[in-house]
């Protein structure tokens, strides 16, 4: 065996002004399982896209088995021996397992699919994985998630890959299925396939990987043998950074409880969450993507149905659990997804801003247009939204300015309990600072604010109380002083206790 299967050296990649990868290096031996670790936004996905040919690096070199490796596109990467299994499975659910395994690589004779040879190849790929029993004629959609994943891996194996990349393969698997997947990975390792294993779950990485590389802010900050690294060491590598003083610290004096959530659960992700929010408090929700934080906010706001538990708004009569009722109880929700849910991109700033309270902007169902514009204009000025006027189509504004308008909707309504899902995602630093300032002022004015954030310094800098979720459960709620970045990561990755 040659000593190095894959070598990346000084990989750089920028998107506009954002430097996603600054200097990444990585070395993997044949038959090695290599864990790639890092926080949300550390650059793992970008790196894997460079590796699988979806992006091209701006600088740096890649070598595969000693030969320069420069994939043109994902198909080219596959032909050269690098296959990728994405977190979101890519199966044609109506086609059979066999058709899925052979998709794009069908055996043909004179343009007709060669059934016999196709079957043999699909069976060979499954045998290599130790899953000979899988029914090749069933539609892919009828299999469980774990089996669908096997079908994907079998597809990747068709072209005899040298490197197999797996992105968060266990995020939707049960523990038993995870154990089976690990057995499959062991088989691949014995056959000499190198596996790059990306996961937020550090315990799993320790279990399956031989070596690791940690990415932080687009740079390789550490690598080594998994057996020699402690969890603490990994967490410190992932999070060790200076917290800049972006966060205004006004003294908050939390008052009475205004919102109580008791053992709330909802399909498909939220298992159990119990919490109390006080007036004048900024409550942070930490955890990994997919841990159920957004689901919790949506369940509180009535956008998802509660499967169990209850949500009590103190001082408001009990009501049906729907967005309409929540707004009238003084709760406002800011969606993490501005484009698809938060805003009507082809409508005006004024309409977007006043959508929840148009009834109150006039009489008998007619809207007082001048008043609506004046209301919107006053927020545009107060929040320094960069635009022509309140009549401008909101889709023409920058992300940060769109977000300010989305927030202004809650302010104007006016809400007294703010549910903010990733309020600073994808916006510029100036707008971020402004939103931090605003959140702090709201709490000082006695409003209750719940902030979901994947960015740890933001949680620690902004919130008075922090709750951390993992796999659908709200595990720990403590005052900010009792949390560190490492401690949050420990709970979020399921490695506490």
């Amino acid at each position, binding site marked *: 065996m040659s000593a190095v299967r894959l070598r990346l050296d000084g990989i750089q990649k920028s998107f506009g002004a954002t430097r996603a990868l600054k200097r990444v290096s990585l070395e993997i031996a044949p038959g090695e399982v290599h864990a790639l670790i890092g926080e949300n936004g550390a650059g793992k996905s970008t790196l894997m896209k460079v590796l699988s040919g979806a992006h091209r690096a701006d600088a740096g070199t890649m070598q595969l088995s000693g030969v320069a490796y420069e994939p043109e596109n994902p198909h080219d990467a596959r032909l050269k021996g690098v296959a990728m299994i994405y977190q979101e499975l890519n199966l044609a659910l109506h086609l059979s397992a066999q058709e899925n395994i052979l998709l794009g690589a069908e055996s043909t004779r004179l343009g007709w699919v060669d059934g016999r040879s196709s079957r043999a190849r699909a069976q060979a790929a499954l045998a290599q994985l130790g899953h000979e029993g899988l029914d090749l004629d069933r539609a892919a959609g009828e299999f469980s998630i774990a089996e669908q994943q096997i079908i994907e891996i079998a597809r990747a194996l068709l072209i005899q890959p040298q490197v197999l990349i797996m992105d968060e393969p266990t995020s939707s698997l049960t523990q038993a299925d995870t154990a089976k997947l690990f057995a499959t990975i062991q088989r691949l390792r014995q056959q000499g396939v190198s596996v790059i294993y990306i996961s937020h779950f550090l315990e799993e990485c320790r279990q399956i990987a031989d070596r690791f590389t940690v990415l932080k802010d687009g740079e390789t900050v550490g690598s080594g043998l998994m057996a020699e690294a402690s969890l603490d060491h990994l967490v410190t590598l992932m999070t060790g950074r200076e917290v800049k003083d972006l966060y205004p610290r006004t003294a908050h004096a939390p008052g009475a409880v205004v919102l109580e959530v008791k053992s709330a659960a909802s399909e498909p992700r939220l298992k159990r969450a119990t919490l109390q929010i006080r007036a004048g408090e900024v409550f942070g929700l930490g955890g990994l993507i997919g841990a159920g934080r957004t689901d919790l906010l949506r369940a509180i706001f009535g956008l998802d149905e509660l499967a169990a538990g209850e949500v009590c708004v103190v001082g408001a009569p009990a009501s049906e659990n729907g*967005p309409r009722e929540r707004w009238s109880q003084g709760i406002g929700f800011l*969606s993490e997804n501005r484009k698809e*849910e938060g805003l*009507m991109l*082809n409508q005006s700033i004024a*309409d977007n801003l006043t959508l*929840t309270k148009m009834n109150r902007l006039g009489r008998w169902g007619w809207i007082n*247009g001048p008043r609506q514009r004046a209301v919107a204009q006053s927020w545009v000025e107060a929040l320094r939204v960069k635009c022509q006027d309140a*009549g401008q189509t909101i889709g023409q504004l920058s992300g940060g300015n769109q977000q300010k308008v989305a927030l202004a909707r809650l302010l104007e309504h006016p809400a007294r309990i703010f549910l903010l899902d990733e309020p600073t995602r994808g916006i510029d630093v100036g707008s971020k600072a402004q939103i931090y300032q605003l959140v702090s002022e709201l709490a000082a004015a006695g409003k209750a604010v719940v902030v979901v954030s994947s960015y740890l310094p933001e949680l620690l800098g902004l919130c008075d109380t922090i709750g951390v979720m993992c796999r659908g459960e709200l595990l720990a709620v403590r005052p900010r002083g009792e949390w560190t970045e490492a401690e949050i990561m420990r709970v979020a990755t399921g490695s506490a206790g």
Partner: protein
Amino acid sequence: MKAVLKKSLAQGGPFLGLILVIVLFSIPAETREFFLTYNNFKIIFTQTVIVAIGALGMTMIIVSGGIDLSVGSSIALTSVTGAMLIQRGWAPLPVVLATVGAGALIGLLNGAAIAGLRMTPFIITLGSLGVARGSAKWLADNQTVNYDSSPINGWMTTADPFSRALPTGVWVALGLAMLTALVLRNTVFGRHIFALGSNEATARLCGIATTRLKISIYTLAGAFFGLAGLFQLSRLRQGDPTVAVGLELDIIASVIIGGASLNGGVGTILGSMIGALIMAVLRNGSQQMGWPTYFQEIIIGLVIIVAVFLDRLRQGRQT
């Protein structure tokens, strides 16, 4: 300033198109004599009434992100209903109310199925297209419904070339267009229609009762279609269950030529009315040129494609 210019350009696109087709038909020797006369425009306006009233309802539906394919059949069913009531000796006002009510009922059923069963409007109204057409034929016993006479017959007449007065239908269409435009622009109901079509998720998030809203939209639009059925009856002076086959396509085309987006959230009543006029001018002009109907169909088809293509170019430049 630039925004104002852009906005007027967006509104002006269909208007320029209308001017263009009018000018084009005014030039040839065959039509020069008659085309640009008051009497001809009286005919064009009268010929626009049914499509225009249909387009009022359709604009609301398309702006809300929906579609209604059952309009032609609804018009046939409601006009048969009206004719049968006249036959039974009903007075004009009850006939009007019943015809409009029948249209609203069809719309209510469409809306309830779309919102309640969460099915796509295309499928539901494709189904009700057949149901309504079949019901019209069944109700009329598969033949035309004739009656002696009714004041309703006079509402669409252009027979008297010496009278300069426009028929009632034109005034009704004009008045309703202005009212609907105001409702869409200036009422909570109207703005919620835009919200629903622009982004249903946002509408739900902001507490809009989207199910109830959808049902109201289809019901109100159905009432417009019932009124269009009434004017269809007035024009034919009989109830014909096979009338207005494919008229929904003319109506949808008017709305689209007028600048509405099938993705929802975009559209104006003024644009749709101009779109309806463009269609009527094209038909009227082609007839006067002596072109066969198949040629008219080809031209109208091409105009729809060109109009939407130009519209997309304009929108592409905006973003």
